[in-house]
């Protein structure tokens, strides 16, 4: 059953022999800006590339997720999904033109997730190069509206409307090589907005400072006692506000995520923070709004799940040391639907979410061999075991 493992080291060099096609796909797709909700142009180019690389079917679903299908040899085996999100955190005004050096590619969103999308579009050519045929259909899906306020809408819709069972899935991300995600924490992503009236008059004589109000929210969140079991945390991730140095701030914003292995705990912490926000709003007579941007439910495979065990074997065969970490991405939606799946990283890099994000080229080929190893494992039946 594990015969494919021995072939993996040879795959690395064969994949490398078409590195120009893989890099060309990454660059040609990645240079098209695709902020969440505005992925149309990137979707079109991604579809063109899939069609160019001769998948058997190429179309979009009802939510405009672009999908390519490579037909398998079996008419009865359910399909295997390979998924990468198309959207990025960078706006259209950011210069998306990439720079390629001897062993690196630099540019916005190259790690999250243009490399993943470029590799996804290259898989048909890579399968041909490796002379691989699968029993299952391979569904290559570039999903839209994943990040931030997108709240994984693309993948949610795709799986909700997919009519037949799904055998297993691999979600691919640009970084980091060695990552093996097979569980997703429960999560609520929120924003607190503070707005102070700009009106003048004696009743507005002593205006509070919006930044200090938000600061008070942060202080009270930090005072919350969070349990170590189930593991839970609040990540203060974004803040902005104010107008200029010499004026009190009339507006401020705080963005944070509540994460926990337990959905119940996520909800309890959210309720605590809601109380904090309402209390501060009342005490300071300010407008303070708590908004939920997105949420996902906790779900996981066990470490001894056959897919996880096979993924570890694949990685070790390629001299990769698996590092487990939770994923808040497409993986969580697959797992919540009881579809065995993992998220894998393709290469190493720096400046993950900056405009000068840089990836190393050389490890990419091992990263792709690992993805193919896991697909072969699923195709050989590891997800079929009950």
């Amino acid at each position, binding site marked *: 059953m594990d015969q494919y493992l021995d072939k993996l080291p040879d795959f690395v060099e064969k994949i490398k022999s*078409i590195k*120009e*096609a893989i*890099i*060309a796909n990454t*660059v*040609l797709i990645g*240079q098209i800006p695709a902020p969440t909700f505005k992925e149309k142009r990137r979707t079109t180019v991604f579809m063109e590339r899939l069609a*160019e690389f001769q998948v058997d079917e190429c179309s979009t679903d009802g939510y405009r997720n672009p999908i390519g299908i490579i037909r398998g040899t079996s008419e009865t085996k359910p399909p295997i999904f390979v998924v990468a999100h198309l959207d990025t955190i960078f706006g259209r005004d950011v210069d998306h*033109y*990439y*720079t*390629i*050096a*001897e062993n690196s590619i630099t540019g916005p969103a190259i790690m999250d997730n243009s490399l993943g999308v470029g590799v996804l579009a290259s898989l048909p050519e890579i399968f041909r190069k490796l002379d691989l045929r699968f029993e299952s259909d391979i569904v290559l899906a570039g999903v839209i509206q994943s990040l931030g306020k997108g709240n994984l809408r693309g993948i949610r819709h795709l799986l909700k409307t997919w009519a037949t069972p799904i055998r297993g899935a691999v979600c691919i991300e640009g970084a980091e090589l060695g990552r093996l995600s097979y569980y997703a924490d429960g999560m609520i992503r929120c924003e607190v907005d503070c707005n102070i009236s700009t009106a003048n008059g004696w009743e507005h004589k002593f205006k509070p400072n919006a930044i200090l109000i938000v600061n008070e929210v942060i202080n009270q969140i930090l005072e919350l006692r969070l349990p170590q079991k189930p593991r839970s945390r609040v990540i203060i991730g974004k803040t902005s506000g104010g107008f200029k140095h010499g004026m009190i701030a009339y507006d401020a914003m705080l963005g944070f995520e509540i994460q926990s292995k337990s959905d119940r705990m996520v909800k309890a912490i959210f309720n605590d923070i809601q109380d904090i926000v309402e209390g501060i709003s009342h005490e300071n007579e300010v407008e303070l709004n708590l908004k939920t941007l997105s949420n996902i439910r906790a779900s996981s495979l066990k470490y001894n799940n056959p897919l996880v065990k096979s993924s570890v074997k694949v990685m070790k065969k390629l001299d990769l040391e698996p590092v487990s970490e939770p994923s808040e991405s497409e993986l969580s939606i697959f797992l919540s639907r009881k579809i065995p799946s993992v998220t894998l990283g393709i290469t190493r890099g720096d400046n993950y979410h900056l405009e000068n994000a840089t990836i190393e080229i050389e490890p990419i080929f091992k990263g792709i061999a690992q993805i193919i190893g896991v697909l072969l494992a699923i195709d050989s039946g590891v997800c079929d075991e009950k």
Partner: protein
Amino acid sequence: MKNSWMKSNTFHYSEFSDLNRLVEEKRKKNLKISLCLPTLNEEKTIAKEIIIMKSELMTRYPLLDEIVIVDSGSTDKTREIAGSYGADVYEAEDILPNLEKFKGKGENLWKALYITKGDIIVYLDADIKNIHHRFVYALVGPLLLFDNIKYAKAFYDRPISIGKSKIRPTGGGRVTELVIRPLFSLFFPELTQILQPLSGEYAGFREVFEEIPFPIGYGVETSMILDIYDKWGLDVFAQVDLDRRIHRNQDTRALGKMAFAILLTFINRKRKLGMVDYKDDIFREMIQYNLVKDEYEPDIFKIEGHERPPIIEIPEYREKFNRSVS
């Protein structure tokens, strides 16, 4: 002035996107095609150009037979990076080493004729940030599909009316609109139909390039148009809309020097063609001024105006390509 040429010989790149057809035409006509990228310190963009062309137009569709870099002595990693991605890399001064040595883009283009194998040569600037394989196939397309076309040039905007009355300007660069277009309008009105005569992306048959002289510097695009027009007429030209091109922007002083070199080339060509009878010598120094502390100091940019003869006149070339002077 008639503008019938513009109607018949202006194309959009999408008209040539059937790459299988281009490859088939190339095979039928038994042609080789070379891509030449002249470089000077282009480490930021060179790899991307090579990778995309190699992947799309060599590996996937065998349209190109070689990618050749001719470098003017870059001090950054241009040559190493280009070599690492499989391009054939040459230093210009190592090609035909017995000849007097010059530095300039025109020199690189001219020497590329000696080291490339192609019947068709495609020249692309190496600083294109939004490089796409259309930059090559769209220039090669007219040469393969239309027997009368011998030289194809890029432009990057559509001077097409929007609705009935709205007109968009052509988007030519500053030097084009302030120098070239007025000159063409005065002396060669027919050539004003070429929308971006200074674009650095063009392709042509070897038999054309080997018969014309190459100025070693900035004037090479202008002289190429004038010489091909003089020898073969406008009907051998095509121009292709390549949509957008993003590249480094140059400041006004640098453009001033470029304009000076182009004017010099233009006047020399006019003299050669017997179109002007200008008795005095022309000064070959472009003088610009800098304010240094409280003094204005001249900043002199000297252009020798060297020009390589048609390469077919070089014995080594004739021997290598088995040619005789026509």
